[in-house]
């Protein structure tokens, strides 16, 4: 184990003893996300580099401070990718931040989210213990699957030091089709297509226009184009479109109104809340720009079987994630205490008291 890990472990032990909050931070590109960051900054950016990359094993092990851009460039050189397409909110976005935030991009509905690709992790818990869970193999049921739980835990369970991720080959062929249809028709169509063996890898609907990305073997993409019709979107335009959605550089995401992420059953009806809307993931992720009261948004989304996150902007003084039922919240508190009994790791970033 190297010096940096030892130093961090020592620092966390000291912080636990004195009850000093630690704000674990990578590139800082997601400082806006979750509840207000508090505590001494513990920067992971200096701890970077690929520890092990075996393209034929479909796995890469990376230090937490590695820039996402550097990792993706390395993978692209071997015609592979992080299939969950994590957002790059800044050039300095890191792998550790990517896993801690647990956010996925356009390909999520087709291939899975961050946690589906986490194979193992080395962390330092709130006691300053260095722990290794999971590993570098695809199938592993030895011990509780703690490493996958780190995805989306916002650094509240441990400092992610190193993570092993499953990677996938880049698709040989890709094409984007455009259709004109209203929201209800798009939601229906996306679910209907989802039940057929089609190589759909992303979808986005807004303002009466549905874009659909196909990825896979050339033969499969060609066959799907012939079958689905629609208008072909030129490759360069399509690439900019999907990257813009993935990294939220798309014009939809500009402006200062609260941005809500609504995670819904794919077949849930249109939410019909005031504000602009963008539907992704075959209907399972809906973005809403709205000044409507949080309570109203949450109630409507819950009624449709989903949950709502105040993703960016808006009044962030209260909870930003959806409230949990009491027994589930109790389990979450217990789990937090199991890993961070002094409550010093990114305290309150996910929920008050976690």
């Amino acid at each position, binding site marked *: 184990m190297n010096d940096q890990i030892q130093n961090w472990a020592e620092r966390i032990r000291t912080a636990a003893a004195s009850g000093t909050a630690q704000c674990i931070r990578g590139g800082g590109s997601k400082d806006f996300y979750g509840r207000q960051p508090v505590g001494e900054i513990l920067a992971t950016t200096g701890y970077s580099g690929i520890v092990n990359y*075996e*393209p*034929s*094993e*479909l796995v890469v092990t990376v230090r937490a401070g590695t820039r996402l851009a550097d990792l993706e460039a390395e993978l692209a050189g071997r*015609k*592979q990718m992080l299939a969950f397409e994590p957002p790059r909110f800044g050039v300095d976005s890191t792998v550790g931040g990517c896993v801690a935030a*647990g956010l996925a991009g356009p390909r999520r*509905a087709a291939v899975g*989210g961050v*946690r589906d690709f986490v194979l193992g992790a080395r962390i330092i*818990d709130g006691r300053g213990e260095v*722990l*290794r*869970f999971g590993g570098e193999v*695809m*199938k*592993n*049921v*030895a*011990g*509780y*699957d703690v490493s*996958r*739980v780190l995805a*989306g835990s916002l650094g509240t*369970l441990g400092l992610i030091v190193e993570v092993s991720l499953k990677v996938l*080959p880049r698709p*040989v062929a890709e094409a984007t089709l455009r259709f004109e249809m209203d929201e209800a028709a798009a939601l229906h169509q996306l679910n*209907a297509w*989802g*039940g057929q*063996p089609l190589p759909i890898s992303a979808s986005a609907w807004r303002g009466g226009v549905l874009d659909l990305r196909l990825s896979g*073997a050339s*033969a*499969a993409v060609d*066959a799907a184009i012939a079958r689905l019709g629609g208008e072909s979107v030129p490759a360069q335009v399509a690439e900019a479109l999907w990257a813009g959605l993935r990294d939220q550089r798309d014009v939809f995401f500009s402006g200062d109104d609260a941005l809500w992420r609504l*995670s819904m059953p794919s*077949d849930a009806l249109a939410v019909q809340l005031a504000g602009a809307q963008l539907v992704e*993931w075959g209907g*399972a992720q809906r973005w809403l720009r709205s000044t409507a009261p949080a309570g109203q948004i949450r109630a409507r989304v819950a009624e449709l*079987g*989903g*949950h709502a996150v105040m993703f960016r902007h808006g009044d962030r003084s209260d909870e930003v*994630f959806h*409230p*949990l*039922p009491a*027994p*589930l*919240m*109790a*389990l979450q*508190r*217990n*789990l937090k*205490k*199991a*890993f961070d*009994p002094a409550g010093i790791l990114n305290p309150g970033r996910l929920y008050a008291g976690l």
Partner: protein
Amino acid sequence: MTGEVFEAPAFGTADADFSRVDKARLVNALARVVPAASLLHDVEDLRPYECDGMAALRQVPMVVVLPETEAQVVDILKICAAQGVPVVARGAGTGLSGGAQPHRFGLVVSLARLKKIVSIDAHARRAVVQPGVRNLAISEAAAPYGLYYAPDPSSQIACTIGGNVAENSGGVHCLKYGLTIHNLLKVRGVSIAGDIVEFGSLALDAPGYDLLPLITGSEGMLAVVTEVTVKLTPKPQLAQCVLAAFDDVVKAGDAVAAIIAAGIIPAGLEMMDQPATAAVEEFVHAGYPLDAQAILLCESDGTPEEVAEEIARVRALLEASGATEIRVSRDEAERLRFWAGRKAAFPAAGRISPDYYCMDGTIPRKRLGEMLKAIQAMEQKYAMRCINVFHAGDGNLHPLILFDANMPGEQHTAEAFGAEILELSVALGGTITGEHGVGIEKINQMCSQFGTPEIKAFHRVKAAFDPDGLLNPGKAIPTLNRCAEYGRERMGASRPPAHPDLPRF
């Protein structure tokens, strides 16, 4: 739900003593919440529950209860929490690691009567099922809609979805379609405190910590599952299988790496060594080449165009890797025949040997050849045969050690042989179990794979859900005392270990 989390729960250090559980008091309390027909406590009625798929270990439980509703599960768990009774949840009892082995002073909660398919929503591609529904039954119910449930463990005709969740089961198609965890939306369960909790959601994520991966594969130690919502996958239009023969196992292993490196994720990629091929050929007459040192089965699925493209690429890669013979299935009957042999590997082992012991290590694919050579050396060392079938695509090995439990010492030798394979799996950068679970079988090897800090962390996770350690005690996570003892034994290292008479699984 108790809020207290133990710094180091007592059950993490030494096995808890449950000998004070009062059978009559337990039966009386249970009789008030379930009908008499759901409650078994005479030893003859209990006998069928004395083991799961790991038949070498038998233990008659104190009581068995077969709830018919979730409300009954809640009542049962509240009684066990109040009386301090160990609870072992059980599905079809097909597990291979002894995860459902009863506790001597405990209650077995069989979920066999919770077997309703609650709903199939074809438009949303999901099914809501009770835990006692069989894996294959889900796919059968979804078939009219052109959908199926992708994970297909070999025991899918019998194993239940509740058991699949408990073990995070795999199958031959998980290279492309994922494990159980990748095909779940939501698991509903009851905590030991009797609270109903939902993990996951009908959306693709849920707020807060993502506890779905923690519950999945937790071997019944965190909650008792009462309902599972699974994703359904569109059935591919076509599947075709390539059978390739090799005169050398290392070449076959390299061919596997070459296929993956070329950017192909086959629907299935399986390998069998020559003794395994011979054993199954005699049994099912799949037409396997018997002179080959190893055969590979590589399946491609998708649209007809896609399959044709992939098969052509796979064939070229296999030729370049030195395959001595390549056959492509010409129709569905031939494809099924190719698979019949692989799927019959376990029964075939049972046919050529009175007993067999199935291992489940996973290693990086590139170490396959090394592992096979080491297993050959172990066959000499232990004077015992081993036939090998692999989920080669994901590096998951199922060596089947052949022995005769009626011969003095053979059972123990087989265990020592298996333990050495597992220890080597860890040493090669892999894991002791890819899909069968730790249960009681591999509990000692957990001490090799994890250090004391991780073992303690696992016990704290357990305590976060089950502070008194009542759910499936003694399984999956070893106590610190057990690891200390195992460490001392290994230090002594005069294999076979020092106390051959001790029951050791």
